[in-house]
C-alpha cells in the first residue's frame, strides 16, 4: 500500500504542488454526487498534467498493489470516483487542454479534464456543437462523462456520449499506452475498443486523450409545453409524436408532484391540478421542417386532450424551459436529502412505469417526484428523504429495490445514464444474469490482472 516512499515517488513524478497529502485536503475527495453510499478518504491525491506521469504512476501502483481511482469533477451519480479501498485519487481537473479543433473533419481532440460546457463554448465559433449535455455539463469533465457514458436532455434525437467518441488514448492497467480510433467516420480495425472504454467507469484503463465528434449547430428551434389531466394522455402523446416520425431534440415529462413542487417554489404560473406536463423542443437546419415538426406536435397534443402553449419569442422559449430547469432545485428544497434514480424503460411503457412509481411512493409513504426524459423512457424518480430518519431510510431502500424490479420487468434497465458504480452493483446480476457477471469479470481480469483500477466498482468480484 502507500508508504512514505510511495508519496516521495509521486512527488517526483507529479511535482510537489500536484500531490495532496494533508488530511483536510484528502477528506474532500471522499465522495461524489451520489447520495447514500459509503465514503472513504484516499491516502493521496495527484493531479497529472500528461500521459507519461500516469504511466509512471501505474508502474508504481502495480509494484505495490495500490488501488487507483480516476476522478473528473466528481459529479458522478453512482459512486464512480469514491476511493473505497483508500489508495490514490487521480484528479484530472488540471489536465484540461483542448488539444485541437478540426472543423473540417468535425472533431475535437481534448484532454480528459476539459469541462463539457467549455468544449461547447470553444466549438461554437465554428457553428458546431458537442451534443451530449448531462445536467452537470457546466462542471463535469469530458473524461468523467466518457467513463460514465453520460446521457442528457438531447438523447432522443442526438444520442448520448458513446455516439460522439471516435477514439482515445488510454493508459492500460498494465502500464502500456494504447491509442485507437481516430478522425475517420469509418474504422473497423480490430475490436471496437471505443465502445469498450466508453462507460467502463474507470475500471479498464485511464483515459488520457479523447477524440470527440462534433455536429453543426441546429439553426432553428421551436419549444412547446403541454398540460394533461391524465398521465395516459401524456404517454400517448409521446408515442404518437414518434409514430408520426417527429424526433424532438427534447421530450421531457414532469409528474404532478414535481409540477406542484416547482410551482410552490418558483411561482411561475403552472396549473397545479394537472397530472403531467410535457416539454418539447424540435430543432433542425431548415425553417420549414422545424415548423412542420412543431405543428405536428401541436396537433398530436390537441388530439390527446392536452393543453398546449408554443413559444413565439426567445423570452417565451426561456420561460417554458424554466419549469423543467426548476424541477430538481425545487424538489431538493423539500427535504434534506434527494435520491435521484434513473431507471429506464422502453418509451411505450412510460406510463406503466410512472404509475408503478406512484404506487411505490404510496406503499412506502415516501415523497417521490418524477421527471425525466420521456422520449428516452429515462425517468428520474426523485425520492425526498431525511437521512436522520432511520425508518424513512429503510422504506427508501425498499422502494428503490421495487423501482428497479419494475423497470426490469418492463424490459428496461437499471441505469439509463448514471452508471452502476457502487450504487447499483448489487442489482447488476438481476439485469445481466450469471453469464453477464462472468463475462464482465473475465474482461476485467484480462485487462487489469492486479485489480488496481477503480476496484469495487461496476464489476462484482464476489457473488
Amino acid at each position, binding site marked *: 500500500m502507500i508508504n512514505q516512499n510511495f508519496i516521495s515517488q509521486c512527488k517526483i513524478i507529479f511535482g510537489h504542488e500536484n500531490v495532496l497529502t494533508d488530511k483536510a485536503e484528502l*477528506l474532500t*475527495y471522499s465522495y461524489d*454526487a451520489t*447520495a447514500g453510499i459509503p465514503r472513504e478518504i484516499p491516502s493521496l491525491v495527484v493531479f497529472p498534467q500528461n500521459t507519461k506521469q500516469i504511466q509512471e504512476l501505474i508502474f508504481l501502483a502495480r509494484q505495490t498493489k495500490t488501488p487507483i481511482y480516476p476522478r473528473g469533477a*466528481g459529479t458522478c451519480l453512482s459512486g464512480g470516483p469514491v476511493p473505497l479501498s483508500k489508495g490514490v485519487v487521480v*484528479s484530472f481537473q488540471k489536465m484540461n487542454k483542448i488539444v485541437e479543433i478540426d472543423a473540417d473533419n468535425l472533431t475535437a481532440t481534448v484532454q480528459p*479534464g476539459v469541462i463539457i460546457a467549455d468544449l461547447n463554448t470553444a466549438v461554437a465559433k465554428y457553428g458546431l456543437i458537442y451534443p451530449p449535455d448531462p445536467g452537470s455539463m457546466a*462542471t463535469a469533465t469530458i473524461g468523467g462523462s466518457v467513463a460514465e457514458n453520460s446521457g442528457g436532455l438531447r438523447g432522443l434525437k442526438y444520442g448520448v456520449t458513446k455516439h460522439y467518441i471516435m477514439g482515445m488514448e488510454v493508459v492500460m492497467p498494465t502500464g502500456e499506452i494504447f491509442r485507437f480510433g481516430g478522425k475517420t467516420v469509418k474504422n473497423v480495425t480490430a475490436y471496437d475498443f471505443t465502445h469498450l472504454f466508453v462507460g467502463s467507469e474507470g475500471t479498464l484503463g485511464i483515459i488520457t486523450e479523447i477524440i470527440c465528434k462534433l455536429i453543426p449547430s441546429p439553426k432553428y428551434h421551436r419549444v412547446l409545453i403541454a398540460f394533461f389531466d391524465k398521465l395516459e394522455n401524456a404517454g400517448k402523446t409521446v408515442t404518437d409524436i414518434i409514430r408520426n416520425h417527429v424526433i424532438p431534440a427534447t421530450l421531457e415529462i414532469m409528474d404532478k408532484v414535481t409540477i406542484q413542487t416547482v410551482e410552490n417554489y418558483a411561482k411561475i404560473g403552472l396549473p397545479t391540478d394537472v397530472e403531467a406536463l410535457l416539454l418539447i423542443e424540435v430543432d433542425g437546419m431548415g425553417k420549414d421542417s422545424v415548423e412542420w415538426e412543431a405543428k405536428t406536435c401541436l396537433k398530436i397534443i390537441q388530439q390527446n386532450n392536452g393543453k398546449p402553449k408554443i413559444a413565439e419569442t426567445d423570452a417565451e422559449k426561456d420561460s417554458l424551459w424554466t419549469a423543467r430547469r426548476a424541477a430538481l432545485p425545487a424538489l*431538493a428544497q423539500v427535504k434534506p436529502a434527494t435520491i435521484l434514480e434513473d431507471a429506464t424503460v422502453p418509451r411505450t411503457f412510460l406510463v406503466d412505469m410512472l404509475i408503478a412509481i406512484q404506487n411505490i411512493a404510496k406503499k412506502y409513504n415516501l415523497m417521490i417526484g418524477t421527471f425525466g426524459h420521456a422520449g428516452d423512457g429515462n425517468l428520474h424518480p426523485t425520492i425526498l428523504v431525511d437521512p*436522520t430518519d432511520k425508518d424513512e431510510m429503510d422504506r427508501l431502500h425498499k422502494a428503490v429495490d421495487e423501482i428497479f424490479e419494475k423497470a426490469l420487468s418492463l424490459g428496461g434497465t437499471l441505469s439509463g445514464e448514471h452508471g452502476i458504480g457502487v450504487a447499483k452493483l448489487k442489482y447488476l446480476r438481476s439485469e445481466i444474469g450469471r453469464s453477464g457477471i462472468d463475462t464482465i469479470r473475465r474482461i476485467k481480469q484480462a485487462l487489469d490482472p492486479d485489480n488496481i483500477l477503480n476496484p469495487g466498482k461496476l464489476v462484482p468480484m464476489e457473488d
Partner: protein
Amino acid sequence: MTKTVFDDIETLKKELIRCMKCGNCMAVCPVYNVEKKESSVARGKIALGEAVLSNAINIDDETLIKLIFNCLLCKSCMMACPSGVRFDRIILGLRAAIFKKKGLPFIKKALFGLLKNPEMFDKGMKAFAALQGLFLKSEGEKKRTPKGFLKGISQRFDAQFILPELSRESFRDRISEIIQVEKSQTIAIFFTGCSVNYLYPEVGDDLIYVLKKNNVTVITPKNQNCCGMPVLVHGDIETARELARKNIDAFENTKAQQIVTVCGSCGSALKNEYPILLERTFYEEKAKKWANRVYDISTFLLKAIQLKPPKGRVELKITYHDSCHLRKSMKVFNEPRQLLKSLPGITFVEMKKPDACCGSGGSYHLTNVDTSLKIAKTKTEDIKTTEADVVCTGCPACMMEIFESLHRFKGISNVIHTVSLLAQSYKSEKDEKKN
C-alpha cells in the same frame, strides 16, 4: 436564547445536510476556477464542516483553517446552488468556531505566514487595521499610507503594488453631520464605510452632491463605525455584533427614513448580516427594520425617491463591474446599468463576465496572493477587451483591487464609482448652461 450558527457549531448540521454534493458550485467559484481543487469550492468546505462535526478532523487543524479561509465570500455558489444551501452561514459559522478556539492573532499569523517576524506583523496589522477600521475609535488618528509598514507582510506588496493616497483628512472629519436641503424629499443616512472614509473621500463628496441635486437631506452620523464585515469574515463575531449594535444605535438617533451606501460589502452587512448576527437578541427587530431601509445609491435614486435625471454630457466609453456583494448579496445589478446607460454621451459596453469576482475578497488578496492575482488577471483581461475608458463599479474594495490589477497587468482604463459618474454628469449640466 436559542443558539445561532455563530455561537454553536452543532447548529450548522441543519445547514450542512442540505448540500447534496451535486457540484454545481464548481461552475461559478472563482477560487476553484483557478485552483481546480475540491477543497477550493463550497462543496469541499461543506464536507470539511461535516468532518469537523463528526470529529473526523479537529477544528484547529492547520490545513483545515487555511482551507476554510480560502474563500472570497463572494456568494457566487449560493446563486448556483439548487438546494438553497446557505453557505455564508456555514463558512462564517466555521470561522467563528476557529476564532473562538484560536483567536484572531493566530488566524492572521496562520494566514499571513509571518510567525518569523511577529513585530513587523503587529505593526503592519495595526496600520492595516486602522485602514480597515478594525479599531472602534479611529477618529482623529493620523492616517498614513501602510505601504512601508506592510512590506514583507504579504507577497502582494511587491514593486507593482499601488494603493490610493491615504494621508488625508477622513471624509467624516470634514463633512457636516447634517446637510439640510430645501424642499427635502426625504432624510437619508449616509453610511460611508471605511474605504470611502479613509481612501475614497471623493466618492463621498460625489454622493453628497448627487443627493443634494435630488433634494435629499443627508445625515452622516459622526459616531458610525466600521460595518463589521472585516471582523465578521475572520470569525470575530462578538466584535462584529458590537459594531452592528453601535451602528444601529447611531441610526436610531436620527430621524432618517433610509440608509444609503456606496459599498456593496457595507450595504450587504447592514441588509443581510446584521439581522443574522443579532438574531434572537434585543436588537433583532431594530436590525430588521434598518435592513429593510438600506439602499445602494443606485436603487435609492431609482426606487426610493423621485429622481431628477442627470442631463450633462459625459463623453466616455464605459464598462461596469458587478461587485459580488452588491450583485449577489444585495441583488443590485440592473439599476446601476440603467443609470449609467441613461447618461448623455455614454457608450456602454458589457465585459465578458461582469459578475466575475475581481479577486479582492477583503484581505484575501493579501493572504492568498497567487489565486487572487490569477482571478484579478482574468478580470483585467476582460476589461481590456472592452477598450473602455472607464470601469464603473459600486464598491470601493473592487475599485482598489481593479485599480491595482489594471496597473499590474497594463490596462489603460480608469476606475470610477458609479455615483462619481452621475455627479460628473450633474456637474457638466452646469457647465453646459454657462456656455
